[in-house]
């Protein structure tokens, strides 16, 4: 059967001009040249609807509830509101598939995924959506199950969609970065694969995201964009190779180091000596990473490494932006027991939030509503000075438990000292 007439796309055609790669050219390639007639038809129909959106400045997709057998989520259903005009793409659902931590692939695996998708879907894929999934964009009610069955057989599983634990994200990490202070792969998989049930069967107040960054540069954007941020750090002295410091100064000059390294230190903990060496006041270093970024050959994280955990980051909806806040200033992750403790902490947090969060309330919003101390008591974590930027300003609080709390603090300190 001959292909349908192509929709005119004068506005989209404008997006084929210019040097940046064009997604419109890509979709047209599918429309014009794909051997599978269904894909050609879907691409034509999709371009027709997209042009219609460009002309009217309006979207025409509606959601719904679809999943695969045994799961409750993982699919972003899309039904066209103008499906009678653009028939071939009237069902255009996305499957969210979990990538490996750090987003590594072999070309063989990408080809295999692509072939499965050409069998059952539109041929459009994005690596990755903003929540971290591989997005297989555009298939029908029926083919969702077929595609999932096929890729699930060779090792791929759906990610989260809806009020559930969402797909995790990790930075490039130890695989290719000298600044990484934690094993992102191990952290990511221990956490995600402990919560597969909460990923696949949405039953939480709202979404819950884990993100892992290997160091405080936080390339994964975990403080701002995740409910549970795990960030690698170290607590001993940073390592200084003084010969490399001298080599750096010989190449870039003293003034460059003063202007771009020592005076940029946020806690003023670096001194450039007359002999072109650096002295670091490590007890005052806040592990911001700036000097290590500029002089990465000379300065490296220390050896006593672990993670800082911050909880409650999210974007605007509903009460405004929230950064994650420190809940665990430092945690070693060396042994299996350490990892089990990490998973247990995540379970505590999610259980407490599932119990106490309101519908559509993120974990950070709940903490804002009930106060950090109630949250800490709920998950069984003691207060720590690193959780705050400064102590209370306002005297409006009942403090008749002061003596007990102060005693508790000194007991904790004594315990730590004797440990």
């Amino acid at each position, binding site marked *: 059967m001959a292909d349908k007439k192509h929709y005119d796309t004068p506005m989209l055609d404008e997006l084929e001009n210019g040097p940046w790669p064009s997604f419109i050219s*890509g979709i047209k390639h599918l429309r014009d040249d794909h051997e599978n007639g269904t894909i050609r038809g879907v691409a034509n129909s999709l371009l027709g609807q997209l042009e219609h959106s460009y002309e009217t400045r309006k979207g025409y997709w509606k959601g719904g509830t679809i999943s695969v*057998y045994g799961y409750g989520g993982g699919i972003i259903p899309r039904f066209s509101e103008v499906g009678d005009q653009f028939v071939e793409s009237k069902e255009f659902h996305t499957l969210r598939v979990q990538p490996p931590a750090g987003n590594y692939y072999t*070309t063989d695996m990408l080809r295999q995924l*692509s072939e499965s*998708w050409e069998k059952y879907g539109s041929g459009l894929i994005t690596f990755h959506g903003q929540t971290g999934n591989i997005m297989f964009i555009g298939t029908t009610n029926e083919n969702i199950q077929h595609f999932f069955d096929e890729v699930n057989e060779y090792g791929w*599983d759906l990610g989260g969609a809806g009020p559930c634990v969402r797909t995790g994200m990790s930075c490039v990490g130890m695989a290719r970065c000298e600044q990484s202070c934690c094993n992102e792969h191990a952290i990511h998989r221990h956490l995600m694969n402990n919560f597969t049930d909460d990923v696949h069967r949405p039953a939480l107040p709202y979404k819950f995201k884990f993100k892992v960054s290997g160091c405080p540069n936080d390339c994964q954007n975990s*403080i701002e964009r995740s409910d549970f941020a795990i960030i690698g750090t170290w607590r001993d002295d940073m390592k200084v190779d003084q010969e490399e410091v001298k080599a750096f100064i010989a190449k870039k000059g003293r003034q460059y180091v003063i202007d771009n390294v020592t005076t940029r230190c946020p806690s003023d903990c670096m001194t450039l000596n007359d002999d072109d060496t650096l002295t670091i006041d490590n007890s005052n270093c806040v592990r911001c990473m700036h000097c290590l970024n500029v002089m990465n*050959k000379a300065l490296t994280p220390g050896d006593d490494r672990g993670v800082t955990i911050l909880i409650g980051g999210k*974007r605007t909806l509903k009460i405004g932006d929230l950064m994650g806040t420190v809940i665990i200033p430092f945690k070693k992750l060396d042994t299996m027991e350490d990892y089990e403790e990490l998973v247990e902490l995540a379970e505590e947090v999610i259980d407490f939030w599932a119990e106490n969060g309101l519908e559509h309330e993120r974990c950070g919003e709940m903490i804002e509503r009930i106060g950090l101390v109630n949250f800490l008591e709920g998950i069984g974590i003691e207060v720590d000075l690193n959780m705050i930027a400064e102590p209370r300003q306002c005297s409006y609080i009942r403090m008749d438990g002061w003596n007990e709390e102060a005693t508790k603090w000194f007991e904790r300190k004594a315990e730590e000292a004797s440990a």
Partner: protein
Amino acid sequence: MALDMRSPIESGCPDGFQYMHPTMRRNYGLWKYHEHPRPGVLVHYAHSGEEIWTVKCATQRILDSFTLRTLCDIGDKYADGYIHFTIRSNVEYVVDTEEKVQPLIDAIEAAGFIVGGTANSIATLSHTQGWLHCDIPATDASGVVKSMMDELINEFKECNMPNRVHMSTSCCQINCGGSSDIAINIQHTKPPRIDHTQVGNVCERPSVVARCPVAAIRPAMVDGKPSLEVDEKKCICCGACFPPCPPMQINDAEHSKLAIWVGGNHSNARGKPTFQRLVAAGVPNNPPRWPEVTAIVKKILNTYKTDAKDWERMNDWIERIGWPQFFEKTGLPFTKYHIDNWRGARNSLNASTHIRF
């Protein structure tokens, strides 16, 4: 349908080591330092003496299977058969010797992809789905990015900015694109238009009421039908009611505008992480090329490029020169809408005599 349904294998997140270049597997956690020999190329040296060369390139992000296959062909022929995607959807090829780098770059560029995006360049905009696939978008995302990167391509290919620049676009106020050095987001300016014949059938009314950040929605009977009404004096036109209740249409061809936010920075380097702040709004949502928003973004970028010191991110630069100078240097209008009135807003006011004259 119910016959012979296959139970899923709940394998969750797969093991990434099987997809990692062998040099990266062998040197996992054992890297020593890296260098940046030219834009788009990084070389990492391991304690073992091995090295890995990375070539970063940009694609259109919405990949068709032909394009994905081209990327794989390049990977097989010129790299070592491995592809890494960055969190901003760039492709990174990794090879174990320097000799493979130039032929790889040549092949990437011959195929129409753009090598760059490393260090102090403008990285690919992270973006959302827009009209292509989202159910609540007021604008497109891929099209805005394509239009903007056509004009900023040299800043992607070269490393001439004071520090890296991360940008994002989002097609509603939820801002899935994320906080960035420069973020282009939709800002609705009119309350939702309500189809009262549909609300009672389609929407779970109590949860829609609960969703409103300013409690402007209340249940009402309209023409004898259960519906919802909006107190338009209270309404902040955020669109939070639209996803749970599609008959409360917030998107408007004329009144859904673009706004530009700057200074979001997720890194802890130097200062603590910062959220983006509003600098421009009322920008027309003008497909297919959105020239007005690109013009403002370019003006901000050029001012930053000229004025900021090495290693200053957008937020570091503005903190040093102060907001009055930011507005003066960029020529953007300062309005009453820039003054925050949300919770915690007093922290954003100047409670001092620190004023630059």
